[in-house]
């Protein structure tokens, strides 16, 4: 099988769907000849032309509002918000409009749009270009929120997202764009609400999201050397969340840690931790469910400080060890 990058996997999913379905098109800032800020849409304007790869004015409210309007006309827009941080300007259209249209119109309208959000830290983009805001989106009824951690899932989830008739918020970690993995060229989809057990283990369950899946897998290898057997779960989709797989795992390992890049306070990992605490897994716990997330500051520009602001492999190792040694 061929290896392709996370960015190429997302692009391949969009290209394949656009070839099949004339109603699918993409819009966003600099996505044409420039190929998008992270190169995800490179070459697409050459194949599909400017009507279907639509460069927009710098106007996030209009990009998202226009997408809501055009989606209600039966098209299937995929919009790229250049950095997920700019989604603030599009929030009314996502939260008040896209998420609520079907509900308010008694199921008679649908807004099948995909909002692509390049997010996360680690590339030196500083405070206003590096946030992880998935908890905001997961809070809103009516949205679907996905967060692929690898190229294979990115392609399969993008396909699922394009086919879904609800608005889908698609979080892409910028640091993952150049990571490579085996991705089949042919058609496949990743269902919503199905987590993946990335590594089986017996001593402690780590539920990790986005880029933290990769860091946790690295940490697990490290921990293995000291005889700690870690089970790693990637929920892949936050809304809906496959809580059953997580609960089953915790019942087996008796310990649970949630690792996420976003600010720990109020992050989506807090929701996962609560769900574990409220479930039948509670009776199996040897110690309280724990969280490891970002510190409560804006993401620093200084590379050392930037690293310090979000969990790194060694932080995960340290946290797990402290839990195992209790």
């Amino acid at each position, binding site marked *: 099988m061929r290896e392709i990058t996370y960015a190429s996997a997302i692009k391949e999913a969009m290209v394949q769907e656009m070839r099949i379905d004339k109603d699918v098109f993409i819009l966003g800032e600099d996505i044409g000849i420039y190929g998008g800020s992270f190169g995800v849409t490179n070459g697409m304007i050459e194949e599909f032309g400017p009507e279907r790869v639509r460069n927009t004015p710098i106007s996030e409210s209009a990009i998202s509002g226009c997408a809501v309007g055009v989606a209600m006309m039966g098209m299937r827009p995929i919009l790229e918000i250049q950095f997920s941080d700019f989604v603030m300007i599009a929030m009314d259209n996502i939260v008040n409009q896209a998420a609520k249209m079907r509900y308010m119109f008694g199921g*008679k309208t649908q807004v099948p749009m995909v909002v692509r959000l390049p997010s996360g830290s680690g590339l030196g983009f500083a405070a206003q270009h590096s946030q992880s805001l998935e908890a905001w989106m997961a809070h809103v009824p009516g949205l679907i929120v996905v967060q692929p951690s690898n190229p294979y899932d990115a392609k399969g989830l993008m396909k699922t997202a394009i086919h879904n008739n609800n608005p889908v918020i698609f979080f892409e970690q910028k640091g993952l764009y150049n990571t490579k993995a085996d991705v089949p060229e042919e058609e496949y989809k990743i269902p919503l609400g199905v987590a993946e057990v990335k590594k089986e283990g017996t001593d402690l369950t780590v539920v990790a999201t986005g880029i933290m899946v990769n860091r946790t897998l690295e940490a697990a290898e490290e921990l293995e050397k000291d005889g700690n057997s870690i089970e790693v779960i990637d929920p892949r989709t936050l809304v809906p969340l496959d809580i059953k797989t997580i609960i089953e795992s915790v019942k087996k390992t008796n310990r649970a840690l949630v690792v996420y890049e976003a600010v720990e306070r109020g992050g989506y990992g807090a929701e996962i931790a609560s769900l574990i605490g409220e479930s039948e897994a509670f009776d199996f716990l040897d110690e309280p469910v724990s969280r490891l997330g970002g510190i409560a500051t804006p993401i620093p520009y200084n590379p050392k400080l930037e690293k310090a602001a979000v969990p790194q492999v060694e932080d995960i190792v340290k946290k797990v060890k402290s839990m195992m040694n209790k």
Partner: protein
Amino acid sequence: MKHVLESVESQFEVFQILNEDGKIVNKDDMPDLSDEDLKELMRRMVYTRVLDQRSIALNRQGRLGFYAPTAGQEASQLGSHFALEKDDFILPGYRDVPQLIWHGLPLYQAFLFSRGHFHGNQMPEGVNALSPQIIIGAQYVQAAGVALGMKLRGKKAVAVTYTGDGGTSQGDFYEGMNFAGAYGAPAIFFVQNNYFAISVPVEQQTAAKTLAQKAVAAGIEGIQVDGMDVLAMYAATKHARERAINGDGPMLIEALTYRYGPHTMAGDDPTRYRTEDLDNEWEKKDPIVRFRTFLEGKKLWSEEEENKVIEQAKDDIKEAIKEADKYPKQKVTDLMENMYEELPHNLQEQWEEYKEKESK
């Protein structure tokens, strides 16, 4: 260094056909409407005035919920709508329920909308419209999207959206026009300038002398129209529609109008921010009074005819309220079912719990 603001602003003139005394003052732009069309316009305005009065009364009796009074704005709302076709797509603001009704939304559903029942927002097949937007200005960016959709699909139709003077201060107002302009999308943007955004007068809203001139910055045409003149509103809209369909791009139409009543029925008292003199001044410009004078001059209208419309409206409203009362009440499970195309598995449990409660 050359300043252009004054010269740009002075270019905007109020477009009028029928003056306050019911006389045609602009024969050149007189639209080609049959006698029957002219009478239909009058019927719609009279009918809508009755609907407004009854809706206010029903609200006070607790039989309707949210309601934004429309009296005074009939020419602006219905004159513009009369120039539209069935295929045109309306994105209204919350005061624009009359256009929806004349676009095909049954009256009982308009009442259910007022009561917050989702069925009020379920547009019947073939009624191309959204239910009223509540967030100020949001319909402008969506209209750009709907218009883009029409263009992409090769439809010979336009997206038509309405906001008020206050809405023009929103970023969405400008972004929507700019987007539609950049894409040459077939959209008509209306501003019904009734001079007060709840209590804030328009001169506190902007330094711009007209709201129509805001089109210039977006590179699209803008026009200021006497919004109490139903013929001018019709003619301006017809013109904007033809341009849009011919691929000449979107247009902004500012209608100068006035709402006689409060902002909404949720506790607004306009005497706190408007004088009686101002109210009286605007009532002299009333769209129905001047059009009646015009039609009577042409021997097309009579008191008898007007009474017939009033009675018809009252009967329809009575029936529609009965029908709204009869409609099944909404349940918690409805809310969940309406939210996603397929219920996510973790909402399924919630749904089952309520389904059981509701069956008892």
